[in-house]
């Protein structure tokens, strides 16, 4: 059962990610991206991490994909994209991806991941939370500061008033 679910999720995730790259229509591309992100959430479910899976759904599918969709709908794509159709670029991209994947796989296989026992009980998210506020508290504070800094930066960027309308178009 888990194998069938794993295979189905793999097909959905990889298929929709290829579709997200290759689709001519940007809207369909972003819908396919949602499929990819949802498939990753499914992998987290299979890995006994429903907490991460539900956050993946709520944040990535629910917010970030919506943001992308919304941006795509409002943008006239002829203005920002210059189509460069080139066979060589495509094959070079595929080759680069293969090289990266093979090297990453080699690193993974070389590490101690093969000795990890797979039938252990899943880690409770409460334990992760307790670890975060006790032993790893500097990391938590750092993450909070980075997020707060980025939100403040976004607010400042959004409030900029020195950009004129004619400058925006160019």
């Amino acid at each position, binding site marked *: 059962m888990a194998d069938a679910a794993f295979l189905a999720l793999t097909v959905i995730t990889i298929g929709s990610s290829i579709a997200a790259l290759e689709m001519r229509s940007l*809207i369909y591309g972003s*819908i396919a991206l949602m499929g990819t992100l949802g498939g990753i959430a499914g992998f987290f479910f299979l890995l006994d991490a*429903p907490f991460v899976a*539900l956050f993946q759904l*709520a944040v990535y*599918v*629910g917010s970030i994909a*919506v943001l992308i*969709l919304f941006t795509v*709908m409002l943008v006239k794509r002829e203005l920002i994209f210059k189509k460069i159709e080139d066979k060589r670029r495509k094959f070079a991209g595929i080759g680069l991806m293969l090289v990266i994947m093979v090297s990453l796989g080699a690193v993974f296989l070389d590490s101690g991941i093969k000795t990890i026992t797979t039938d252990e009980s899943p880690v409770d998210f409460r334990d992760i939370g307790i670890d975060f506020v006790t032993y790893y508290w500097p990391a938590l504070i750092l993450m909070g500061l980075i997020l707060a800094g980025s939100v403040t930066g976004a607010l400042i960027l959004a409030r900029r008033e020195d950009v004129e309308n004619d400058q925006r178009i160019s």
Partner: protein
Amino acid sequence: MSVIAPNFKLSGFIKAIINDAVWFLLIFSLIGFPLVMMVLFVIPMPVIDGELLTPFLAFTYLADPSRTLPIVQAFMTTDMFKIMAFPGFGFAALLAAGTIFLERKLLAKLQLRVGPFYCGKVEGILQLLGDGLKLISKEIIIPAKADKPIFWAAPVLFVASAAAFVALIPVAPGWVVADVDMGLLAVFAVIGFFPIVTILSAWSANSKFPFIGGIRALFQMVSFEIPLILSLLGVVMVTGTLNLSEIAASQSSFPWILFLPVGAIVFFITMLAELERIPFDLPEAESEIVAGWLTELSGMMYGLVQLGTYLKLYAFAALFVVLFLGGWNGPMVVPPFPMEIATEGIEIGPITAKIAGLPLFDQEMLNGIFWFVLKTVAVIIFILLPRGVFPRVRVDILLNLGWTKLIGLAFVNIFIALALVYAGVLGPGGLQ
């Protein structure tokens, strides 16, 4: 002579019926019966009175009224029943349909009208049936330049998201479709799907009014999700769990609204905005943009979106009840089942009928359902009332409210919850 069918012949009619029956029997025995058998081969059948239930046995039982109840009982414990009928879709759709009628009558009374009146003779109780038949029989018109796959899929996806939301709501102890350990997070994840479906439906219609309505809906839903999530964190802090059944069970002595009224108010306001109810009905503002993102939907597509909207309304009201009003908890009002009927049977004159499988329902379950439905209907009426009272707000006021005031109040609520936990009022060593 009949005007409707001038060439009617009784012999021809009977011949047609016999013809149909023969074809039906042929197709059923060749295809349908093997198919049923194949399905039964896979589905585990229940064991009743130490005997495995086969289809033949089930037909025998059904013919005997005193042996029907065990089958019904076995059916009630299946997942299919839970999803389709009781805590899931059927129950919610029934309450949603009741809500539509209640809304029309209530609004009419508030505005000194009569509302639906003629259909069904008594206060227009058959109006809903008539509306449903009208929607089903209407033609579905798709705009010529619409993006057809998305346009067709959007209403179905909307109902599916609403049904997924409904599936997470615990109605009575143990009566919930999906008892997820992180139920509240699952609720947040499901709520995130509504803006996607809305904006896709609005965009795919390729028309101005739906697109404006869709953009408004997106702004409104996404910006009110944040105070919605923050306002519920207080309840999570004082209960220490995300499971909705456990949250409901933790309120056996008092509901959380007594301790966290600020969170309840913030959640109620965000709920109105998420549901696009007046005063936050900008996405459907019928006096400005026809019907907002629903403008191009017709026939049963519109009907599906309406069904989804009211399922969502029920689910939000039920979530309010579960989180703040104590869920199914309430004083026991349902009388206990007279056990002598089960042990000695019912005496009807000279006959004594012994019926197996009684009692069919738990006393606790019936009581839970009673209180849950009572509270949910009360919350639904509170959601409906502003429609008769308030005008629509402007979009900048709406967003200002969501981003500044409600988020601030939600943080106040979180600090109240923290203070209650750390002061020892609630939590370990406290009241509970």
